[in-house]
């Protein structure tokens, strides 16, 4: 076994299905103990990448090493060192929470005494110890997801892969799941690789890569990404929006857009700009608000569209796909 500095090391990883390039040569490194997020719309290639890293599907190009093992040359070596939580449930609903974990422990060849020690620990961590004897089919969506996270951690993996860990859960449960994920990050020296299409969730990551159409468009810490966008968004309501818009253009060389609420424009240092606005704008100001750039703005800046628009277009792409195939087969 070689000593690798990165826990996850990806070079030019590719996956194509016929003409469809799901992942087009992505490269990145994840350091030990880091929480790394893959952010992008549905259909951008996030799940395909995660499946390749987990040795579930074979890449068609490039290479990837996870926990020091090559995903194509030593898949079993990789599998033993990773924990997985999928988008879709993978629990046996007719078994109890405890039985699901016992099954996992044996499948992962955990020594009996260590399983006996780890099972209560992980169940406690996700707050399901009291419900350990309950059949999983009686659990709520949030409880099931927590149980999956507990199971993913049971065999003390070096890397935990979370594919859309909160998809389909209500906002309150999502917050709770994130509490658990942060707890485990503090408790266990573990590297976390996650995918999400929720912008707010990406904020929990140490570093994120934004992926669109199978390519990484940018990669950095959430703060650095937002700082790179630079400009704050200012929303302004005045007594005469049309005149204010003209004045902004003449005096500040700022192009504002009219919205149903008033005017919106972007400036570099929002907080310093607002006092000038009050002093120099010859129109009465009713309200003003400054918004820091969000990851939505980051995504917008790098892809030229909002994540919502990207999602509907990639949905079209997926809808198109069977037709493409049908045409080819003719």
């Amino acid at each position: 076994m070689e000593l690798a500095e990165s826990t996850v090391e990806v070079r030019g990883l590719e996956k194509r299905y016929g003409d469809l390039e799901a992942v087009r040569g992505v490269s990145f490194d994840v350091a030990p103990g880091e929480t790394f997020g893959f952010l992008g719309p549905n259909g951008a290639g996030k799940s395909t990448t995660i499946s390749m890293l987990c040795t579930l599907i074979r890449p068609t190009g490039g290479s990837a090493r996870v926990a020091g093992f090559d995903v194509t040359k030593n898949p079993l070596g990789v599998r033993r060192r990773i924990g997985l939580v999928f988008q879709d449930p993978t629990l046996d609903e007719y078994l109890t929470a405890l039985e699901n974990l016992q099954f996992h422990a044996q499948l992962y060849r955990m020594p009996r005494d260590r399983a006996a020690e780890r099972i209560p620990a992980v169940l406690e961590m996700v707050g399901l110890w009291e419900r350990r004897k309950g059949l999983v089919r009686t659990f709520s969506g949030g409880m099931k997801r927590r149980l999956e996270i507990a199971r993913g951690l049971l065999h003390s993996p070096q890397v935990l892969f979370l594919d859309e860990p909160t998809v389909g859960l209500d906002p309150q449960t999502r917050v709770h799941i994130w509490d658990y994920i942060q707890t485990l990050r503090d408790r266990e020296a573990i590297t976390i690789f996650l995918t999400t299409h929720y912008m707010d969730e990406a904020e929990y990551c140490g570093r994120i890569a934004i992926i669109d159409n199978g390519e990484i468009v940018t990669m950095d810490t959430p703060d650095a990404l937002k700082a790179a966008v630079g400009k704050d968004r200012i929303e302004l309501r005045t007594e005469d929006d049309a005149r204010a818009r003209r004045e902004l253009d003449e005096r500040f060389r700022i192009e504002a857009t009219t919205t149903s609420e008033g005017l919106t424009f972007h400036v570099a240092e929002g907080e310093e700009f607002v006092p000038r606005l009050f002093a120099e704008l010859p129109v009465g100001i009713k309200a003003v608000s400054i918004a820091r750039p969000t990851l939505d703005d980051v995504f917008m800046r790098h892809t030229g569209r909002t994540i919502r628009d990207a999602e509907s277009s990639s949905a079209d792409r997926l809808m198109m796909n069977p037709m493409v195939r049908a045409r080819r087969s003719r």
Partner: protein
Amino acid sequence: MTTTATRQSAAMPDVAPVVDLTEGATWYDDLRAARVVWKREIIRFSRNRIRILTSLAQPVLFLFVLGTGLAPVIKVPGGFDFRTFMFPGVIAMTILFTAIFSAVSIVWDREFGFLREMLVAPVRRGAIMIGKCAGGATVATLQGIIMLILAGLVHVPYSPLLIIELLGMMVLTATMLTAFGLFLAARIQEIESFQVVMQLFVLPMFFLAGAVFPINRLPTWLGTLTRFDPLAYVVDAMRKTVFTYAHAPRTVRRTLDPGITWGGWHLPLGVELGLVVLVAAALLGGAIAQFTRTE
């Protein structure tokens, strides 16, 4: 929320991930993986009492309603109970339906995601298949044993030797049929296809096995077909055994237990069972190969 938080800190020791899993899967690891897959099947079966009862309803109906109804039509010499003839067939039937049902549960596992938990584990696919097969075979044998208890009602003696011999053949039948089910199920992606499997494979297999009628005086085309049904060989082997212990008169044996012939050659019991072992091994091998190839 707060209570869980405090309990968490107490319960979670600060352990760094330890990699103490030795590399390279040995046969013992595979065995352990197979055992846990087997165990899950048993737990699920024991929890589903309704399934145990409903899958017994059909064979009981066949034996006591169809069998009793047919008895006066089919003239069996010497007042011999026709249902004694049907008994091995009905046991095979119980095993057939339970085994196929268990095997096809792999399609359910796929549908509800649990198959993924098994597929991503660091174990060989073959081990999972063997565990599944052992689980299905155990469950099917258990159902068969419940039917075996009814033996006395249809004039099959409770001889310990007979029971031991039948048990052995039942385990073999159950293994072969579960392997057959897994072989079919390894490729099935949707639950809906289960109906197709039943209509296309299971029912013909049952009817061609000679479970409810003797297969010696059939028209050539049908008689030829029965020889391709592996279930026919176990039914024949079990019937031979039952008739021996039930002291069936020679006249009865001539009509109801003529044995299976290959171009005039009467297959001895040992050859019949040997054939079934081969078929079982081939099917299980095929199921493993298919399962390893897909996904």
